[in-house]
């Protein structure tokens, strides 16, 4: 499992850094463009997803008390966090031009 987590960790790091680079280029392009940002705050349904993540975290912790294999869920999910941050750069709108 250690080897797997290390390999996945390296892959996730590359993905994260690719996203970071995209985000940085976006930020610089938008700054140079200088176009005004919209003040609109769109409606956003978050209650279900928020509740799901709270319950999921509780289930993962409780799971470590039922199966020793679940102990590895923590490290694996930490890699999901890094991957999620990287993904956030790719789902944000790209700067025009």
């Amino acid at each position: 499992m250690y080897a797997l987590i290390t390999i996945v960790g390296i892959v996730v790091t590359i993905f994260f850094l690719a996203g970071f680079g995209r985000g940085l280029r976006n930020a610089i392009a938008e700054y140079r463009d200088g176009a005004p940002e919209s003040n609109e705050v769109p409606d956003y349904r978050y209650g279900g997803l928020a509740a799901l993540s709270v319950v999921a975290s509780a289930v993962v912790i409780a799971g470590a008390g039922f199966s020793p294999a679940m102990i590895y869920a923590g490290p694996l999910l930490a890699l999901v966090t890094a991957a999620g941050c990287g993904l956030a750069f790719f789902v944000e709108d790209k700067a025009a031009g």
Partner: protein
Amino acid sequence: MDKSIFAQMPSLTPTLGFASMIGLGLFSLALSYGVKTLLVRNTHDFIIADRRVGFGFGVGSVIAVWTWAMAVMMSSAMTYNWGLSGLFWFVVPNGFAVMAMIPFARILRKNMPEGYTISEFVEYRFNRSKVATAIVTVTMIFGIILEILINLKGTSVVVSTVFGIDWRVATVVGIVCVLTYSYFGGLWTSVMTGTLNTLMITVPAAIVVAAVYAKIPGGTQAVFDAAGAADARNLSVLRPDAAAGFGITLAFGLLAATVSDQTFWQKVWAVKSRDVGRTFLWAGALFYPIPICLGMLGLVGIAFGLKPADIGGDIVAIGPYIVSHIGLGLTLVLLYVLVILAACYSTIDGASAALSSIVAVDIVKRYFPQTSESSLFVITKLSVLLGGIVATLIVLSGLDFTTLVLTTYALKTSILLPLVLSILWPKTNMVGFVGGIAAAILIGMPIYEMAGELIGTLCIVAISGLTVLIAGLVGGRDFDLSGLKRITDEVSAPAE
């Protein structure tokens, strides 16, 4: 399980410790200088990043500022002390507290799009009440100094323990590293270095925890069996003593820590308006795995029957002790130190950036409105250094900062419901807001001292909330939050 497996590593020299601290600082400084050159021209860019922080940087930086160095260690310590119930009560409210910002963040960003600080909102919400504004400003400043102080202290303890560096020297080197790079780019620097620090926290944490379990004969099965054999409650999340002992109090404290913290409000107004809601949702959800991962080190401590005396007397040291004594390679131990340093640096630079917004908007522009842009920019940049210097002096003085912790706790918990109601309930008025906070401190804190944390915290929250409700019902006038859209930008970017 035989705890003779744990032994001091001889190769962890002070030079390696300094190299880790200064190396991360220099890396951040290089990034910061680039940020300053490319993205920061004036005070507006420095304190609010021109309100152009994108979704990726928003998520990464919110996770980074919420991942305190102490939290990295506390997740292991709470598991070690209470078993999985400790981890449950430490983790579940933590991510929820970040997501709890979403409704308030959306309302204020929608109705006060040109805002900078939560104190500024209170100023306009309560008809420029100097008392209400001052209370909130002081609370934010206290909270920021405490954030810096706790992270600095925690990191200096770890670095001194692992590398044998004098803790005073570690404190000074740590703060100099963070403040040097924070000075250049303000909020942009904070969000970018913070986002990278999220990477430096998560991937190394996963690898190090997996390596620890790989090093233990029998791996997870052996730890699972030994922890259960030590006490079956270690493997349950349903221990009521964990909830009563710290869980419920921590849950309220964490809510107050986000909703009553300018570090988060600064990001509410800096992230692009369309991304505010999902930024806090993703950050809260993606935060969860970090303490869950590091908490698994606590089970190792239980399984090996480590006693507090074995690890230096303080259970917070359980994670660092296991990693630095179980026989991992030097690279892995350094990776773990990197996790703690990254958590420390990102929280301090986030807090310093938040302090700069308070100084610019709530102090200089409020009391000296004629200050020129060039002077304001200089003052704002210098203010980044202020919180760090004050916190360092407190740490170095060796003073017991219990008073500061208690004062900040009292202010933040007292302000929680009045602030929430001032955003959600139009009838909230100045008398209720100030009266609620004052009554909560004057009546609730003595109860807290006498009856303990749980009852005390519930009383503080109840007294502050009830006072606001009663004053609002008696006062009877509704406040139109949408009127705040007329508020102009206090520190607008100067024309080119």
